[in-house]
């Protein structure tokens, strides 16, 4: 009897999340691999929600009134951008170079 292929309604998407500068210090972590599960297509906003749910520094630093920018695979991205398995998503505080 042929086996049914394994399928799931919600694909599991795994992304590399990178925390830079002030955010790295606040989280005590330079980055991690994050598995996003759930219905619907994951976006940058899904990642932010997942992290903010941890509370503490996470909810404080990622509160809606905090200026944080996002990059997907080294390009600035909006919160609505869809993320795919293997993407690198960076959280960037406002830049202060020059």
């Amino acid at each position, binding site marked *: 009897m042929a086996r049914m292929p394994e399928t799931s309604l919600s694909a599991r998407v795994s992304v590399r999340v*990178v925390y*830079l*500068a*002030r955010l790295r*210090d606040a989280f005590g972590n330079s980055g991690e691999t994050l598995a996003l599960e759930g219905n619907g297509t994951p976006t940058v906003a899904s990642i932010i929600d997942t992290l903010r749910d941890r509370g503490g520094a996470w909810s404080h630093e990622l509160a809606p009134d905090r*200026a944080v920018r996002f*990059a997907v695979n*080294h*390009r600035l991205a909006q919160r609505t951008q869809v993320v795919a398995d293997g993407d690198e998503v*960076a959280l*960037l*505080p*406002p*830049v*202060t*170079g*020059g």
Partner: protein
Amino acid sequence: MTVRVQAADFDIGAEIAQLREGDRSVGAIASFIGTVRDVNDASTITGLTLEHYPGMTEAALEEIVAEARRRFDILDALVIHRIGALAPGDQIVLVAVTSAHRGTAFEACEFVMDWLKTRAPFWKKERLPDGERWVEARASDDEAAQRW
């Protein structure tokens, strides 16, 4: 068009000589050097650490220089930005632009710096006598970048 992110210091004389070498249509060279101050927001600064996001930072600088080339009639441009630990008086950044005439060179140089300040992923952490702090972004930098 050259962009470099490096820990090492740079020699502005040598860099500009190389930038203009071999192009006799250059009539103007404008440059900007940013340096580390020993005071910020009324605090004594003993040094800075500059952080970047490898890969994205270089790409962002390349895009800024490409945009300058689209907007201004420039011949060549160079951006060098240092990373790592720096002391007061140290050079941080060099922007140099060549063109036929000075107006274009001045404008393009200022444009590249204004966009670099607000778009290139670099972050400064200041060392003070009693600890460290991340530098906050300035609204005046956003206003300067929005002029263009």
